[in-house]
C-alpha cells in the first residue's frame, strides 16, 4: 500500500518502534483495514494515548449507573434538560481548550462569561438582540485580549493573571448588575424573547429531522471528499470501512438526539417537543472552532506552541500573537457560554458561581482528553467531557444529592482525569 516501507536493515530496531508508532500515531493513518484499525485503536488506548473512546465509554457507564438508580434519568424530558444544562459547561470547556492547548490555563472564564452576559442582558433593554449579543461577545474579546497581552508581553504566569480575573470579574459583575438599574434583586432579567429562546426554544420536529440529515450529510460529504482527494493524490487513505463507521456513529448520534428531542416531554395538558436550539449553538461553535484549529495556520501554530514553543519560534511563528489570540478566542467563547447560561436561567444574577463554572470547564476539557500540559486536544473533547460533567451534575441532582456532594464527585472525576493524563504522559515519555 504505502511506499514508506521498512528497510530490511532496520528491522532489528523497528520491532519496538512499530509498537511505539502504533501506540502514538493516529490509527487511521496506518491501518489498512477495519480490523487493523480497531486493533490499533485498542492498543493506543491501552498505552494511555486517549482519544474520544475512553470518555465515551465513561459516559455510557455513568448513564447506565444513573439509569439503574433512577429510571427518570433516561426520560426524554430529563435528557433534553441535561443537554441544556450541559451547554454552558461544554462551551466553557471549548474556551478552556484554546488555552490548555498552549499549556496555559484560564481560571477566569466563568466570571468573564458572566460579565459578558451582564453586558448583553443590560444592553438588550435598549438595543436589538443581536447587537446585545455582539456587545457581549466583544466584551469577551476585550477581556481575553487584555489577559493575553498581560501574559505574553509582561510574561506573567497565566495561572496568576486569570486567578486575579476570577476575583476581579466577580466584583465587576456585581458592580455592573447594581449599576444597570435593572437588577434591584441582584439579577438582571433577560428581557428579550429571542435570547431567552436560545435555550427555551425548540426546532419543530420536522425541522429537527431536516437539520440533522443536512448536518450528517455535510459531515459525511466532507469526510468522503477528503478521502477521495487523498486517494487521487496516491496518498495513504483510511479504508472506506473506517470512514463509513465514523459516518454511521455520527448518524446514530444524530438520530438519537432528534428522537429524544422530538419525544413529547410536556405534561398531560401541554405537549412539548422538538430539539432545543441550544444544540445547534453548541454544534455551531464546535464546528467553527474545529475548523479553525484543524484547518488553518493559526490552529497549526497553537498545537506547535503547545508541543514545543521554541521550535515554533524558530520556525518563525509569532508566539505572542498566537497566544494572545488564543486568550481572545477563549474570552469570546466564554461570552457565548455566559449568554447561553443567562438564557437558560432567564436572568443573570450576582449569585452566578464562576468558580464552579471554571472547575466544570476545565473538567470538561480534561475529562474529554485534552492534555493539561499543552499540545494535545480537540474541541470535540470539551463536548464529550462536558456531557460527562452535565450527566454527573444532573444525575446526582436526580438522586437528591446535595450540591456539596455534586462538587465533591465532580472534583474527584476531574482529579481522576488529570491523573490519567499525567500518568499517560509519563508512560509515553518512558518509551
Amino acid at each position, binding site marked *: 500500500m*504505502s*511506499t*514508506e*516501507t*521498512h*528497510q530490511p*536493515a*532496520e528491522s*532489528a*530496531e*523497528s520491532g519496538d*518502534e*512499530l509498537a*511505539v*508508532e502504533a*501506540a*502514538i*500515531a*493516529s490509527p487511521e*493513518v*496506518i491501518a489498512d483495514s477495519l480490523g487493523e484499525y480497531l486493533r490499533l485503536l485498542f492498543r493506543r488506548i491501552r498505552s494511555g494515548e486517549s482519544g474520544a473512546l475512553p470518555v465515551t465509554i465513561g459516559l455510557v457507564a455513568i448513564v447506565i449507573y444513573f439509569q439503574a438508580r433512577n429510571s427518570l434519568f433516561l426520560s426524554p424530558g430529563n435528557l433534553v434538560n441535561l443537554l441544556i444544562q450541559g451547554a454552558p459547561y461544554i462551551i466553557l470547556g471549548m474556551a478552556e481548550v484554546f488555552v490548555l492547548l498552549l499549556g496555559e490555563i484560564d481560571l477566569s472564564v466563568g466570571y468573564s462569561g458572566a460579565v459578558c452576559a451582564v453586558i448583553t442582558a443590560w444592553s438588550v433593554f435598549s438595543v436589538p438582540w443581536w447587537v446585545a449579543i455582539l456587545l457581549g461577545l466583544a466584551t469577551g474579546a476585550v477581556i481575553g485580549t487584555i489577559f493575553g497581552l498581560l501574559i505574553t508581553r509582561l510574561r506573567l504566569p497565566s495561572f496568576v493573571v486569570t486567578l486575579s480575573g476570577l476575583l476581579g470579574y466577580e466584583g465587576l459583575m456585581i458592580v455592573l448588575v447594581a449599576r444597570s438599574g435593572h437588577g434591584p434583586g441582584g439579577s438582571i432579567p433577560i428581557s428579550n424573547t429571542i435570547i431567552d429562546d436560545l435555550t427555551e426554544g425548540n426546532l419543530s420536529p420536522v425541522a429537527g429531522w431536516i437539520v440533522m440529515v443536512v448536518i450528517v450529510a455535510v459531515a459525511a460529504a466532507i469526510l468522503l471528499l477528503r478521502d477521495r*482527494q*487523498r486517494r487521487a*493524490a496516491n*496518498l*495513504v487513505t483510511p479504508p472506506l470501512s473506517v470512514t463509513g463507521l465514523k459516518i454511521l456513529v455520527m448518524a446514530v448520534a444524530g438520530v438519537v438526539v432528534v428522537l429524544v428531542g422530538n419525544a413529547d416531554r410536556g405534561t398531560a395538558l401541554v405537549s412539548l417537543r422538538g430539539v432545543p436550539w441550544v444544540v445547534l449553538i453548541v454544534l455551531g461553535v464546535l464546528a467553527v472552532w474545529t475548523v479553525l484549529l484543524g*484547518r*488553518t*495556520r493559526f490552529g*497549526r501554530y497553537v*498545537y*506547535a506552541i*503547545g*508541543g*514545543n514553543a*521554541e*521550535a*515554533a*519560534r*524558530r*520556525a*518563525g*511563528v509569532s508566539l505572542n500573537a498566537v497566544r494572545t489570540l488564543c486568550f481572545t478566542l477563549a474570552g469570546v467563547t466564554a461570552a457565548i457560554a455566559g449568554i447561553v447560561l443567562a438564557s437558560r436561567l432567564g436572568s443573570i444574577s450576582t449569585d452566578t458561581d464562576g468558580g464552579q463554572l471554571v472547575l466544570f470547564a476545565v473538567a470538561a476539557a480534561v475529562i474529554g482528553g485534552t492534555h493539561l500540559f499543552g*499540545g*494535545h486536544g480537540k474541541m470535540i473533547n470539551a463536548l464529550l467531557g462536558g456531557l460527562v460533567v452535565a450527566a454527573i451534575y444532573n444525575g446526582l441532582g436526580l438522586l437528591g444529592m446535595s450540591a456539596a456532594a455534586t462538587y465533591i464527585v465532580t472534583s474527584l472525576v476531574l482529579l481522576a482525569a488529570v491523573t490519567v493524563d499525567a500518568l499517560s504522559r509519563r508512560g*509515553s515519555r518512558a518509551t
Partner: protein
Amino acid sequence: MTTPSAADGARPASSGGRAPSPAATTTNPAGRPAQEPPLLELRGVGKNFGPVRALSDIDLTIPVGQVTALVGDNGAGKSTLIKTVSGIWQPDHGEILWRGRPVHLHSPKAATDLGIATVYQDLALCDNLDIVQNMFLGREEMKYFQLDEISMELAAKQTLADLSVVTVRSIRQPVGSLSGGQRQAVAVAKAVMQQAQLVIMDEPTAALGVTQTRVVLELIDQLSSRGIAVLVISHNLNDVVNVADRVAVLYLGRLAAVAPIKDLDTGTIVELMTTGRSSRVAATPGEPAHATSQPGAGPGTPTAGGTPGNGTVGHHTGEAP
C-alpha cells in the same frame, strides 16, 4: 590578535604551502578558480558572555557543497559559533559574509531566509505534530483559505524519498513516535525542503545507536552530493573522519586549525583539540585560519607516521563513500 581585515586570504584556494587542495579545487569550476566567493565567511568573529570569551577572532570559510566538521573540547565554543551563524547570538566583533556580502543575522528567521538551516542539538521539532506538519511548520501551503494538506504531504514524501529516508512507516505519525535518527532525518528533510544551502548540525549522532548513526551520516553525504554545504559539530572523530571534507578545530574559543580531512589524522585532531596546537600542524592560536598553510606543515608531513593513541580509525582519505 590578527587584524580581521586581512581575511581575504581565508579563501579555500589560499593553501599556498602545499599542493592544491582537492577540496578547494572541487568547489571551483575549472573556468573561474577562486572567483566565486565562499558560501559563508566569518571574519574576525568574536563573542563574549560577560567576562567569558566564548569566541575570539574566528576566521572561517564554508565552501559550497562540502562537509565541514567543527570539533573541539567541551566548552570550546562550538555551539556558540553555530548559534552565531544561525542568528541566535549576534557577534560582538567581526563580520559574517554570505556569498561575499556582509549580512546581519539578527534572528533565526533571518538566517533561515538566507538559506542557513540549523538542526539543533535539542532538535527543534514539535513532538505532537506529525512529520508533514513539522516539515512545513511556519511555511504551510494554503488552498481556498485552508491548509493544503495534500500538496504538503506529497512534497514532504518526495523530499524524504529523495533523501532515501525510507524507514518511517507513515509520514502522518507524530514526530514524538520516531527514533532519534528518524527525527534527525525529518529535521534535515525540513531544511532541504526549505531550500537550505547550508545545513548546520550540532552533534547529530550523539545518543544514536550504530544503525541510526549510519542513517544520519548517509544523510549528510546526501546533502553534500546535492551541493548543500554542511557544518557539523561532532565529538565522535570516527564520524568526522567518515563524513567530513574539512575539519575546523576550536580550542578555548579560538580556531586552532582548519584543514582538509586528508591532511589530518585523529591523533592530530585530538592533539589540536586538547592543546590547541600540534607538532604536525604548526598552528598558533593567533593565526588560526591559515593553520594548514603554515610553512611548517610541509607537503606530506601531516599524516606521515602512525599516530599514537589511535588504533581504530585508519588514515582515511576523508572522502566519504
